[in-house]
């Protein structure tokens, strides 16, 4: 647990967060930016204050994009990146 906290403190990348579709309903109180090194870490960091949101983010159909490209949850994040959480799309 101590290691994890150290890990977080080393992360300097400030990330812009976006939540779409039903995820937006769970993310109304979430700040617009966060510091994290991967999308998976964003999820972990949000868990303390927004457990209902994170439960949704952990559903296997939810995709994550970085700067508008679908990526894996372990994708390293550069400062200023735009990370979006995308539930299954329903357009058309």
């Amino acid at each position: 647990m101590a290691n994890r906290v150290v890990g977080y403190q080393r992360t300097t990348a400030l990330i812009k967060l976006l939540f779409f579709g039903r995820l937006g309903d769970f993310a109304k109180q979430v700040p617009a930016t966060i510091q994290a090194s991967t999308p998976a870490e964003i999820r972990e960091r949000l868990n303390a204050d927004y457990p209902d949101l994170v439960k949704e983010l952990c559903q296997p159909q939810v995709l994550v994009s970085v700067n508008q490209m679908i990526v894996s949850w372990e994708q390293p994040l550069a400062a200023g990146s735009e990370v979006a959480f995308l539930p299954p799309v329903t357009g058309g």
Partner: protein
Amino acid sequence: MNSIRIQTHDFNLAEEYQLLRELSPAVGAVVTFTGLVRDFELDSSIDSLTLQHYPGMTEKLLQEIVDQANQRWDLIAITLIHRVGELLPRDQIVFVGVASQHRVAAFEAAQFLMDYLKTKATFWKQVSQDGKQHWVESKDSDSTAAARWNTRGD
């Protein structure tokens, strides 16, 4: 000669068709698909539908879908229009128009575009029904429809 538009205002099928038809004297087939807001969802009438999307990413994904269709089929032009914002029952939501020399390419490309748009493009529908809002669930049948384009021999 492709056109991709995401817009809040309505579109006019007749105008879109004329543009496709008049592009070239080689056009022998024009297929159009128009998606409309039905008045019922889950056996109950709806008040309205709100289309959310991810600006920037949606345009990029639609461009990729259009590029893929042009690679797979010999087409003269594609028009793809998707509305966003609040729509009412019977409103037009989405338009796909394909012009080609021969009908099979136009039909297949239009279906491909709709199947991919439904499963890849970053749009989300929210229904307002009996004064309450809920997000529309994605349909397995749409994923199945899109998957068939990966398993074909051509």
